[in-house]
Structures are given as C-alpha cells and as structure tokens.
C-alpha cells in the first residue's frame, strides 16, 4: 500500500479468464474466497489466551477486518473454532461436543501452548493438546501468543480455506480423518 491513509479493500481476484465484460473462474476459487473472507469464529476460551483474543477482537487489532465480525458463542453458523487455553481432561468431552455440533465446513485453530500441546501443564489432569480429541488445522505457538500471532494464525487458516476444494469434505481422506477421531 503506497498511501497509508487509505485502506485497500480490493481482494486479489482468483486465477481466471478475463474477457471484455466477463470474468470466468473456477467455482472452487469463488467459494474459497467467500469462505476465507467470512470466517465466523467460535471462541472457546478457557484461560489467558482467551484474554489475548479479547484484545484481538477489540478495536486496536480488530479481527473484524478479516470478516470475523460475528463472534458466535454457539456452534450455530460458526466456521472457525478457536480453542484458547488449557483444556483439562474433564473439559475434553464438552469441547468435543461443541466441535461435533458445528456444521461443515469447519476449521479449528489451537491458540497457545496449552491448546496445542498441554503447554507447561504436563500433568495428569490436562489434555496434552486438543488434537488428541479433535482435528486441528492451525497451531498458534506462544504462551500466551500476542494478538498479532493470533491474527497470523487466522491468516494462515484463510490461505488454507481459500485453496480448499469444495469437494474436500466428502473426500475419503477427510472421512478417514474424522473416523480416526471417532466422529460420525
């Protein structure tokens, strides 16, 4: 951006064929673009990382710029599950239930050391990473991560969503992945 006083709101167009008065591209790209720029988050915040996410939601970092304006504190209409904080083994079934209640397509970000690996809580009562119970797309390192890191994680996920095939969710690999977690 040359002029910093302006905000560029033009997302780059996907690859396609341009002619006079029309533009042709793959449905995958259009759907991916739409999904990536309207990831509706479901924050599952249990500890300090949740506080960092509150800062990410607030005006200074403003996660709404990424089309994540609507925080959903219910699985309804949410695409992006952000797990932020220590997940105790007692909490694991609840987290799993929230994930199962989300509709496809759904993505998961594990924010911070605890959600990713159990972090410093290397002990009997803490789940050593949420990928033990649900599939995870992006891991955000840090203890706790700064808002910039959470935004970076969201942008990484956007890249993933943008390039995902519309038919990925019905592919045998994806079914197998869910089956490995005993989901469905």
């Amino acid at each position, binding site marked *: 951006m040359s002029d910093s006083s302006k905000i560029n709101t033009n997302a780059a167009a996907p690859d396609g064929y341009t002619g006079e008065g029309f533009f042709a591209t793959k449905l995958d790209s259009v759907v991916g673009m739409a999904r990536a720029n309207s990831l509706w988050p479901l924050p599952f915040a249990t500890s300090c990382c949740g506080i960092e996410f509150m800062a990410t939601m607030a005006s200074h970092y403003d996660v709404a710029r990424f089309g994540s304006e609507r925080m959903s504190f219910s699985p309804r209409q949410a695409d992006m599950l952000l797990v932020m904080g220590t997940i105790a083994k*007692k909490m694991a079934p609840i987290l799993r239930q929230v994930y199962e209640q989300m509709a496809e397509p759904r993505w998961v970000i594990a924010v911070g050391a605890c959600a990713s690996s159990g972090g410093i809580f*290397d*002990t*009997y*009562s803490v789940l*050593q*990473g949420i990928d033990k119970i649900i599939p995870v797309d992006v891991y955000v390192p840090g203890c706790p991560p700064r808002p910039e890191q959470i935004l970076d994680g969201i942008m990484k996920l956007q890249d993933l969503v943008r390039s995902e095939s519309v038919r990925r969710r019905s592919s045998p690999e994806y079914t197998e992945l869910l089956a490995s977690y005993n989901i469905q």
Partner: protein
Amino acid sequence: MALENSVIQNKLTHKFDTLVSEFVQLHDILTFEVNADSILDVMKFLKEDSELRFNFLTDVCGIHYPDNEAHRQFTVVYHMHNWYDNVRIRIKCFLSADNPEIDTVTGLFLSANWQERETYDFYGIIFKGHPQLKRILNMDEMVSFPMRKEFPLEDGGRTDKDDRFFGRTTDNC
C-alpha cells in the same frame, strides 16, 4: 479479653483428656492432634462452648505422609476461626493407610461439604455420613487419588513428549 491458648488447651484437656494431645504453637496458630474417632465431639464442643466460640470452619484438607507408620499415613487438617476474639486453631487427625475413614463434620458446618469432597477427591479419605461424597474437581472416571505421594504426576502412557527434548532425566520426570 482475648482468648488465650492456655485456656483453649486446658478446657479441651479437661473435657477430652487423652483424646486431644500434642499441643504446639505452629506459625502463630495453636495446633493439636485429635483422636480421629472423636473429631465430631471435639468440634461440636469448640463450636458451641460459650467461651471458645469457634464459629467458623476455614478449611478442611488432607496430607499424606508416606514415611509415617501405616496407622498414621493420612492426616485430615481442620482450621477453625473464632470471629469474636479473632483466634485461629489447627486440628490434625491421623488416619490409617488401609482404612482412611473419619466422620463428616457437615452436620456442624455446611461449608465442610465441598471441602470434604475435595479431600476425598485428592486423597481418597472417606468421610462417613457425608451427604454426597463424590469427586468435585477431577473427572469422575478417574480411579486414582492424585495427591497421594505414590501417584505419578505425569501420564505414564504418554507418547507425545520425548523427555530428551525437555531437558528431563529419569531423576526429575
């Protein structure tokens, strides 16, 4: 007129004789042992006596002494507080390792309910007569009592973390 430790000690010894013992001043709090079978009577006396008036149960917790002889392995510790004179006492009851059982004090203090549940959760100490003795913090499926000293702090079946990458040796893991 503050309530003196000597007064508490004399009253208890006079009433309960050998059932109370080992009076000692630990960190500004009078501490003594009570025979585990008579905790209810002692606590009732402490609460209802017109001079002692220990009207508040601050805390109930457990201790495991793995090096003690078998009949004194577990301890239940009660902290009581007299709000009128601002005096605190600490009561210890030793229990055996094979059969760690003690009467519940929920009849005297309702607040003991969750405190005893927590003690049961972490030490496996059975409080006889407790209205709902089940785990309160850990998962219900858990079979062990994690604050017992023989309990391994980490999950033995772990495959996700290799000790070599965490600077841990066999001595500290």
